[in-house]
């Protein structure tokens, strides 16, 4: 369970504003990707974000490109989780595969403002904000396994070694 500060954004936050296309083939190190996180949406974000902060957004977060850096840059910027009303499909998979929890809860999103505090309890599947407790659907076991391993690559590596 960890407390975090909220960065709140609207609907349809797309992968181009999360991680601009012009960097997709020239920046390969995750730490450097983090410097450009949300650059075209909120240019101050990358400098000010603190480890444990949480992104809260509206519908269709992560729509657009399949670029996994959109998840990588947020994770390495220190973002603990993304809470949104809904996620675009590929981003949702990419985030899990990067070990970045993505939680869907309309009510939680509506109950919190930019700069507010949020607490996420992964075991209980709940999100706590100043205005209440909200549950999010528990992850299936396989997804939890990927998140706990820190992403699909370490997860698969372990599985392959175990074979």
């Amino acid at each position: 369970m960890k407390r975090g500060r909220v960065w709140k954004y609207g609907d349809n936050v797309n992968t181009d504003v999360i991680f601009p296309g012009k960097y997709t083939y020239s920046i390969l190190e995750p730490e450097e990707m983090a410097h450009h996180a949300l650059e075209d949406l909120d240019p101050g974000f990358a400098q000010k974000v603190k480890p444990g902060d949480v992104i809260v957004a509206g519908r269709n977060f992560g729509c657009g490109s399949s670029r996994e850096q959109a998840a990588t840059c947020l994770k390495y910027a220190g973002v603990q989780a993304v809470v949104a009303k809904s996620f675009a499909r590929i981003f949702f998979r990419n985030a899990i595969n990067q070990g970045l929890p993505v939680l869907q809860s309309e009510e939680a999103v509506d109950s919190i403002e930019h700069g507010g505090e949020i607490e996420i309890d992964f075991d209980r599947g709940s999100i706590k904000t100043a205005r209440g407790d909200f549950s999010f659907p528990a992850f299936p076991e396989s997804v939890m396994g990927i998140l706990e391993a820190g992403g699909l690559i370490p997860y698969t590596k372990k599985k392959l070694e175990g074979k």
Partner: protein
Amino acid sequence: MGKTFSEKILGLKAQKDVQAGEVVTVSPDYILSHDNSAAIIKEFRKLGVKDVISPQKLVIILDHVVPAASEKYALNHKTIREFVSSQKIQNFFDIPFGICHQVFSENGFALPGKLILGADSHTTSYGAFGAFAAGIGRSEVATLWATDEIWLRVPETIKIEIKGELPSGVYVKDVILKIIGEEGADRANYKAVEFTGEAVKKFSLASRLVLANMAAEMGAKNGYFEPDEETLLWLKGRAKDEFKVISSDPDARYEAVLDHNISSLEPQVACPHTVDNVKPVSKAEGKEFHQAVIGTCTNGRFEDLEIAARILKGKKVHPKVRVLIIPASRQEYLLALKKGILEILVEAGCVILNPGCGPCLGAHQGVLAPGEVALSTANRNFRGRMGSRDAQIYLASPATVAASSLEGKITDPRKFL
């Protein structure tokens, strides 16, 4: 109860009876990647596996930044070439060929009834030929290279019935923009989309590719057209493998059926900065712009270049507009060359670039400065996509882009027909 195409193909692959909502573990027929293969190789190496398990399934096409625009891009390409030769990957297309989705299709990998996964969101394009084709991320592709296995959720399906007939000066690009504008950028999130109806039977394969390509802009996992005679004819001599057509049952269960009649459709324009911010051209007319782009995996085929040439023939583009023409592939380029289309375009003042993604993702060949406006035939107009975050991108059909290029402002193409 019958089954949808998606339920059938994923069931077939998983070797069990499945319904929408279930999760299956499957092995794809082909795995696409492009310039991002360099990053995928890096992830693949972390898995501690020496060789790709099924190298014959990999299709690697260099297209995003070709030829390399900087040392970093060059190094990526070099890494990929070395990997391709060390892993004996046969299906490799180096920089002369063009945009991955076009090259993949014309080389006969996009086949009915195949399961295709690609490290690109517009992998949905291959649904134009009756394949199940979806975009995935890099970690997943790297894992597939090592294990040949992935989990997929069987999607619910939305049927889009297109009725009526395209009016003159209106094209499938207008149809899909209109649909996305009405239904919203996340209407088909996690879902499959089937395009049916009397109108789609008349659409060329190039046009079906436009719809399947842009299904991704509704959030769709995959788009689908039932293969017909035209599909089979097109695949003759191209198909890389045997295939079997898979179709939805007549009594399949759909999440929704959306009717769209196109008979009185006007040309459409998607305005900044979302693809569902769509207006009829009459509401966007007069907007001045600096750069026009006719190309990309959405609208860079011969049929698109020909439409543009018809409008630009014997005329000159507006002196304040830079018009970039990017044929989607070498094959389309050659065809346009032989038919004199490129000559018309060059004489009109257009710049012809080599087949590839060009400035579509803002990496090279015509990125935008702050305050600039582009009118493009691409599929995405997100803020910052073509360069500066303070630039604007409008999306339209090749006809609208060509007509507007003559006037230097967004223009209804119907007055040039």
